[in-house]
């Protein structure tokens, strides 16, 4: 009789435990489902707190949470939902240098398993809010940083241009003698190709993201070898140029591509001794292939070389190679790093004529 009772007791206890486990499994499944829906909603709304928070209530109600409230301050912004001030509410506050978050939930009750659900939901909500704020702050900081870099770059050139115009105008007003006039013209002759290259570079930068007007075909025939000779001469780069080819293209585009590539080698030559560059030009059937390599060292991530605003130089803008690749692609060509080559060896492919 006693043994039978003990058996019954164990069977009953086992059933109760199984029941509890099944219930807990059901609860956690339901909770997990809602949490995943919340994460999914946040992703769909692109981590925008202003949209995410007002749309969360329906999901919370599935977990017996009737209401919620929050006060969030970040980057001079405040998002608020008033506190209903009920007895059962649970809240959490996060204080950081850049932001403050107060988030609270009002559960239907705070008994049994609901206490556990309340804690988990509050934690998940605060993590999502904090993550969204951090993403937002990071995006804004990065945008501002990149904007200021771009501004510095353009300002540097714009200020030089303004100084150049000022000095030019002063000199024009002081050309009293023939000797002075001749000297002045000689200086201008010497610098005009450079001015033209600089303006090509700026035009290339400004046109970088612009749709090109492809109804008019370019008409300039560009001798690649002579263009590269001029650029290497300008940057005083010891070089070997093999091969010859010419293409029909917009001159400013081609100048912009090679000026950016050779400027990088020039910058290296200022920090390392005896940097030389080698350029091989292959005249293919419909394209021209130019391989540019140098003897300088490369420290950085080769895979990120064409990434916009990625620079291995301190204070570098990180726009040159991206711009060069962008222009080459818009012409129907490309620039890539040749694998298995020492340092950085770049291959530039350009079509001989651009399709209309």
């Amino acid at each position, binding site marked *: 009789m006693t043994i039978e009772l003990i058996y019954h007791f164990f069977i009953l206890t086992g059933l109760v435990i199984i029941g509890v486990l099944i219930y807990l499994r059901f609860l956690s499944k339901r909770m997990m489902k809602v949490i995943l829906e919340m994460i999914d909603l946040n992703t769909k709304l692109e981590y925008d707190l202003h949209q995410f928070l007002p749309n969360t209530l329906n999901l919370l109600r599935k977990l017996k949470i009737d209401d919620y409230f929050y006060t969030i301050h970040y980057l001079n912004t405040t998002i608020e939902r008033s506190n209903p001030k009920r007895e059962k509410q649970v809240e959490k506050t996060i204080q950081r240098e850049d932001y403050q978050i107060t988030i609270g939930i009002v559960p239907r009750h705070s008994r049994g398993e609901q206490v556990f659900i309340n804690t988990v939901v509050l934690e998940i909500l605060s993590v999502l809010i904090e993550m969204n704020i951090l993403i937002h702050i990071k995006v804004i900081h990065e945008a501002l940083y990149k904007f200021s*870099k771009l501004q*510095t*770059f353009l*300002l*540097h050139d714009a*200020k*030089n241009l*303004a*100084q*150049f*115009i*000022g*000095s*030019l105008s*002063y*000199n024009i007003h*002081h050309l009293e003698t023939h000797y002075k006039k001749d*000297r*002045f013209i000689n*200086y*201008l002759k*010497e*610098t005009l190709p*450079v*001015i033209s290259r*600089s303006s090509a570079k700026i035009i290339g930068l400004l046109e970088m993201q612009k749709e090109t007007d492809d109804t008019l075909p370019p008409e300039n025939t560009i001798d690649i070898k002579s263009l590269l000779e001029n650029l290497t001469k300008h940057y005083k780069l010891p070089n070997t140029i093999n091969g010859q080819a010419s293409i029909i293209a917009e001159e400013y585009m081609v100048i912009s591509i090679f000026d950016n590539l050779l400027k990088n080698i*020039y*910058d*290296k030559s*200022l*920090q390392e001794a005896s940097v030389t560059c080698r350029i091989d030009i292959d005249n293919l059937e419909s394209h021209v292939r130019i391989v540019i390599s140098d003897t300088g060292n490369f420290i950085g991530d080769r895979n990120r070389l064409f990434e916009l605003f990625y620079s291995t*130089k*301190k*204070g*570098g*803008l990180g726009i040159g190679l991206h711009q060069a690749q962008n222009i080459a692609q818009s012409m129907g060509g490309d620039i890539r790093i040749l694998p298995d080559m020492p340092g950085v060896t770049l291959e530039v492919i350009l079509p001989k004529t651009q399709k209309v």
Partner: protein
Amino acid sequence: MPTLLLVEDDIALRKQIRFSLEENFTVLEAENRKEATELLRKNPIDVVILDLGLPPNEGTPEEGLIVLSSILNHYASKVIILTGQKTEGVALEAIKSGAFDYLLKPASMEKILFSVERAILFKDAEKELEKQGIKKISFDIEVGKGLQPLRDEADKHVILKVLKDTNFNVYQSAKILGVKRESLYYFLKKFGLKRTHDD
């Protein structure tokens, strides 16, 4: 004719400034730190017009400030900064280092010429005073910390200047300073003065 070094990476601008100056000065040109250092080493230069945004870091004043510090530590040239780097910190650093003038681009040619003429005037006056045995030494000191740090800084700068003038000849330096060689060695140890590669 006084010699002037123009350190500017923009060749078009450099040529225009050169044109305005070369009637009255011997003008040398450099477009980066390497060329500037080379020219400074080989030529006695009275005035340097220095752009701070030099390659490979045109967007920052870093390269220019290195050139500035190198000139002020090793040469007696007057330095006029002509730059587009408009931040208070940079201007403050340049002036603290001992730049003669700080002009923001775009600056009128009249302003540049005026500044160069003043720099030459100061340079000539200093040369004249040097002939009379008077040397100008400048250094920065935080006021309000008593007189001892001021005395130490003055001692250090005078000793360093004389050592540089005598090419770090301790015997000659001690003679010029009017102290015993042992005393000079004591100061060298106290201030941690050593001959650097540049010296």
